[in-house]
């Protein structure tokens, strides 16, 4: 079969892919470059394309609210990831014990993932509201001095975001771990049992060490969810009280779209991109290495 330039089998695939290539170049790479340029410009209320060097970044780094947001992301991200991993792993181990109604239980653990973060935020905002929420419930049950006002306490409000986030995402981590456990070769476990290994030993010595790749994937996904968290914070705390629960994603929105500080907003969004790049690179590296091995 000779392939001339005019053979549709040669040009048709390229033609079919062309619109997506164009879209990718313009709306992903082009827009990132555009946004990067904005972050080096004098833009305030309106985009202005005069070069301003690192002015916007200097403004960003001298902004207290930005550092609160960055610190919140750090606190929220770390706790969210650790608790999702612990809860997800424990539930996966318990579910791996020939549980009779495993399918139904799995469905229940996972359904929050189908909800929008706005719905999750709305539900937890109601439950955590100190007047009529969990605090009242516990007081009605006889714990009269029970106080749970984290939602309106600037020092504690960020932890309510962790509570709601873990509720939403831990079931997903459970599903990842469970799939990983089921993928481990049965014969190794059987052999260990024949040798008289106890259940905890089997998990500690055989199953958990084999979950490395799953743990890594879960870590990437959770970090990514944490960095992008926006809707959950808007719906649950609105970034408040004050701006005590601001995160970079809400900071970008506020500066770029409601406070008329386009330059600072785009600089902040570039910092978010840097954070994501920092987690993608080791991921891509490990993926490529696996393929080569």
């Amino acid at each position, binding site marked *: 079969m000779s392939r001339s330039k005019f053979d549709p089998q040669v040009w*048709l695939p390229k033609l079919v892919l062309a619109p997506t290539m164009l879209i*990718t170049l313009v709306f*992903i790479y082009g827009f990132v470059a555009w946004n990067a340029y904005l972050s080096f410009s004098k833009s305030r209320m309106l985009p202005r394309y005069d070069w301003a060097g690192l002015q916007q970044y200097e403004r960003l780094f001298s902004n207290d609210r930005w550092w609160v947001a960055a610190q919140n992301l750090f606190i929220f991200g770390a706790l969210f990831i650790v608790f999702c991993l612990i809860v997800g792993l424990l539930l996966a181990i318990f579910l791996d014990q020939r549980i009779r109604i495993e399918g139904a239980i799995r469905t229940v653990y*996972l359904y929050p993932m189908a909800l929008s973060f*706005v719905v999750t935020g709305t*539900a937890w905002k109601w439950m955590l509201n100190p007047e009529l929420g969990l605090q009242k419930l516990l007081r009605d049950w006889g714990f009269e001095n029970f106080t749970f006002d984290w939602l309106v306490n600037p020092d504690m409000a960020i932890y309510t975001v962790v509570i709601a986030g873990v509720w939403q995402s831990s079931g997903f981590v459970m599903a990842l771990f469970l799939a990983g456990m089921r993928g481990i070769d049965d014969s190794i476990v059987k052999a260990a049992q024949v040798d008289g290994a106890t259940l905890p030993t089997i998990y500690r010595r055989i199953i958990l060490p084999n979950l490395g790749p799953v743990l890594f994937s879960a870590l990437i996904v959770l970090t990514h969810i944490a960095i992008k968290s*926006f809707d959950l914070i808007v*719906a649950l705390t609105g970034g408040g009280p004050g701006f005590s629960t601001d995160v970079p994603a809400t900071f970008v929105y506020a500066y770029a779209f409601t406070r008329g500080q386009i330059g600072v907003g785009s600089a902040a969004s570039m910092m978010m*991109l840097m954070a994501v790049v920092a987690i993608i690179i080791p991921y891509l590296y490990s993926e490529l290495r696996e393929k080569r091995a």
Partner: protein
Amino acid sequence: MSSRTAGAGMHPGWRVLTYAILLVAALYYLLPLFVMLNTSLKSLAEIRSGNLLSLPQDPSLAAWSKAWGSACTGISCDGVKGYFWNSVKITVPAVLISTMVGAINGYVLSKWRFRGSNLFFGMLLVGTMLPFQVVLLPMARTLGELGLAGTVSGLIMVHVIYGIAFTTLFFRNFYIGVPDDLVRAARIDGAGFWRIFFRIMLPMSLPIIMVSLIWQMTQIWNDFLFGVVYSSGDAQPITVALNNLVNSTTGVKEYNVDMAAAIIAALPTLLVYVLAGSYFVRGMTAGAVKG
């Protein structure tokens, strides 16, 4: 795919404990849904006198009908029904278009590879990890130039553009598993590009089509970021309307209406999850892990 460990060899006490822990966890996950439903069926007076778990004495759907038809969200007081339909009008076309484009892209990137196509796939994958904050401003400007700012069509466009990376990923990884010999044989028989796609590839794609449809549907229905930035007034999707309703500061806080509206906003994706849970989980792992 069988449960691995010798659960049978476990001490009965441990077994009971395992079940107890699993059930407590299940209650924890169900609690917010139950509280939402419970609250939505009570009157405001009852909400104030009772607590989160006290059952409604006189269950009523009044809050539901108010949330749907007459609650105030920001400026207007027509409930969330208009916004619910906006979300339908945004989600249905965006899901269908992005899935169709993804299927064809995946076909090319797996069965008609050319020089540079792998590199392009790599470049496209970056789109699955991109924090969208970084494209918000340029896209806002572009939508304005195109006259699509604040419209349903504008949101459809945005969702299609940033959904293609995911749908292409799904189909490409699915078609990679289809033997190349099948395509080669069809070509020897004289079948061309489109014929192979429609006659051979598409008929075997039902599982991945489901994954793509469900993934895109949940993503787009649940989207808040694009919705809040690119829509205004009566073009807003349901997630934005729900947030406006719950966080509006005027008047008496009607928790029962808030909860009914939240359930209405969650219903379509919950329904999809209950009906097609296994595809849902597959999409989540494929999209999330591979992305």
